[in-house]
């Protein structure tokens, strides 16, 4: 026990001696929270609309006014011909081009069918689809006004409108959705990157051999590597959470104790993975690559960006052994929905199982090398 104490002292001294590391420990959660959380959103603010008005009539101008009046579209340019309109799509200066043909007002007067042509840049499919559905709603409203002006009774104009409501997150605040996920990435950054590199470094510069010939026991060595980063990880998590609280006023519905308990289990799982990977690598560059590969796969598959429930079967099966998937689900449930211990007991149990498994793998793998 005394030996472990000395080892821990050595580890902490090494961390404190590297001023860069200290700064990183403080700056990483700050940067992640303040820089990333507000930026990662799929919510569309506005789309750039180009309007090519070939009709130049009061009706086309009125439609234009209606479109620019909506907060969803910003009319940015008025191309003169089709070629120019297409060019705007290629250069990305317009997301959607609306072409009002020269017989538009004639059509509204009943001579022909009034037509509108819409060209949408669909590289971003979400923007294109939502832009199109907004546009048709506005055009329908406009059409209704025209018909009423022409003397039709409003009740004769049949139409169905929609009124969407969003439960659990009424304003569709994306920050609430992403912040629990970014906290998980934070734990991975500390737990997987810093701790694993630390052990591989001892291997690479040969000091691990020196430690191996001392009476230090294996578990003492591993504990001395795990405990400092466990503490650092929890510290950074608390820091990140406070920043999120202060800066974004994120609601915290559930129990803080439960949140930290789950995070602690997750941190153990991550540290176990870090130790396991470090036995697979012979230098820090290799470790970095292995760790990065698995981080990438775990994080992307976890449902942090898109719901994991809508992923194909194989992805959901993979997520059974993906600690990040459990943690993201737990975080969102505890933070946003206020789920209690019984709601997340299954996920917690699975996470604990994974933590035990990873730590045992790491100890077994380490034994072979020493």
């Amino acid at each position: 026990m005394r030996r472990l104490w000395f080892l821990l002292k050595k580890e902490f001294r090494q961390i404190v001696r590297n001023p860069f590391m200290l700064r990183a420990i403080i700056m990483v959660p700050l940067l992640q929270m303040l820089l990333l959380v507000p930026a990662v959103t799929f919510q569309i603010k506005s789309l750039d609309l180009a309007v090519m008005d070939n009709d130049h009539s009061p009706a086309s101008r009125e439609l234009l006014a209606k479109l620019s009046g909506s907060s969803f579209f910003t009319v940015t340019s008025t191309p003169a011909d089709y070629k120019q309109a297409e060019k705007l799509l290629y250069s990305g200066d317009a997301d959607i081009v609306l072409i009002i043909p020269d017989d538009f007002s004639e059509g509204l007067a009943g001579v022909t069918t009034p037509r509108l042509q819409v060209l949408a840049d669909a590289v971003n499919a979400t923007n294109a689809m939502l832009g199109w559905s907004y546009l048709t709603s506005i055009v329908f409203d406009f059409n209704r006004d025209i018909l009423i002006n022409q003397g039709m009774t409003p009740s004769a104009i049949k139409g169905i409108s929609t009124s969407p409501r969003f439960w659990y997150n009424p304003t569709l605040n994306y920050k609430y959705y992403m912040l629990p996920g970014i906290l998980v990435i934070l734990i991975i950054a500390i737990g997987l990157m810093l701790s694993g590199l630390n052990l591989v470094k001892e291997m690479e510069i040969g000091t691990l051999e020196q430690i191996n010939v001392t009476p230090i026991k294996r578990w003492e060595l591993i504990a001395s590597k795990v405990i400092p980063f466990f503490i650092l990880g929890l510290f950074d998590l608390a820091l990140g959470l406070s920043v999120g609280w202060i800066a974004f006023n994120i609601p915290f519905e559930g129990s803080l104790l439960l949140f930290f308990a789950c995070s602690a289990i997750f941190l153990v799982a991550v540290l176990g993975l870090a130790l396991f990977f470090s036995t697979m690598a012979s230098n820090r560059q290799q470790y970095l690559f292995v760790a990065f590969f698995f981080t990438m796969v775990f994080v992307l598959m976890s449902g942090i960006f898109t719901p994991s429930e809508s992923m194909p079967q194989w992805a959901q099966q993979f997520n059974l052994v993906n600690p990040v998937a459990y943690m993201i689900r737990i975080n969102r449930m505890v933070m946003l929905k206020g789920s209690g211990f019984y709601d997340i007991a299954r996920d917690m149990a699975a996470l604990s199982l994974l933590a035990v498994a990873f730590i045992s793998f790491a100890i077994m793998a380490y034994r072979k090398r020493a």
Partner: protein
Amino acid sequence: MKRFLAFVKKEFLHIFRDYRTLIILFALPAAQILIFGYAVRTDITNAGIAILDNAHDEVSSELALKLEASEFFTIKAYLTSYDEIDAAFKKGKIEEVVIFPEDLAARLQREGNATVSIIADGSEPNTASLVTGYTTAILNDYSASLLQRLNTSTPVINPEVRMYFNPNLKSHFMFVPGVITLILILVCALMTSVTIVREKEFGTMEVLLVSPLKPWQIIVGKVAPYFFLSLINVIVILLMAWFVFGLPVRGSIALLIAECMLYILMALSLGILISTLVNKMENAIIVSFIGLMLPTLLLSGFIFPIENMPKGYDYFSMILPARWFVEIIRSVMIKGAGFVYVWKETLILAVMTLFFIVLSARKFKVRLEEGSK
């Protein structure tokens, strides 16, 4: 020159001996392409919805049929009361509930306008806004057809849409360019900074510096293998995108490769710059990872569109080379745009590259004593 070539050969050997890194170097893009192609999708196909039909008339059943017939939705459940909605969401499997009001057909007949309520699960904001948008589009379509049925002489505007570049609205058109951007930053900036700092840390940089090789030769020799590896990686990703998703390069391949080379050069010079600024491998890794990887992944517009970000972030993303490269590669690859459309972004990248090279040349220390604090 012979000495230089021998040095480059040594560096190549170093890398090829490390088969573990090599495997991951190629497994990483492959895994990403597959994950983004099949698992992480932001498009909607067959999203589960539930119907709460209080009307039970011909309009509500026609609308339900229309929703079911679209490729976007599958009706997973028919609810009988409002109280069942919460449980239906909690069970998962459905993204929204469409509620038809009691007197839908009668109301439509009497007042002309009826409102269909949609309740979506806001805890997944992206899916929520997408499914409500798609539902609205389908109902708008129905409204237009109602007007047309009314009387052939009534002027009903008929908007037609042409979805450019991606008519099937697939999300992997967004992601493939992003994967290239990310992998290149990883291989070039991260790997270069780490290898050079490693030489510094082990003291072998001193050995190299006292050799007859000039400093620039050492640096070029160090980064040359990564240049080639990155190019091979780009080609692998493009081939995978083609064979797995049928995503062709619409623009000129020569232009695409040239732009990739510029970006690789930029990333390499960024890696060299980082290596001149830090002395420890961990520090290089933290700088590259936090300063490059995360912003590239999240702020370059690769997953989350830049237009959606708050105002200041838009400007911040301008200093990220990845943002410009994502733009370029999307234009060339997906839109088939020519050089005239991307010259501005190319110029910005070129200026950035030059800036990084000049800065790292000035920072590069031929002597080491001041570096080892």
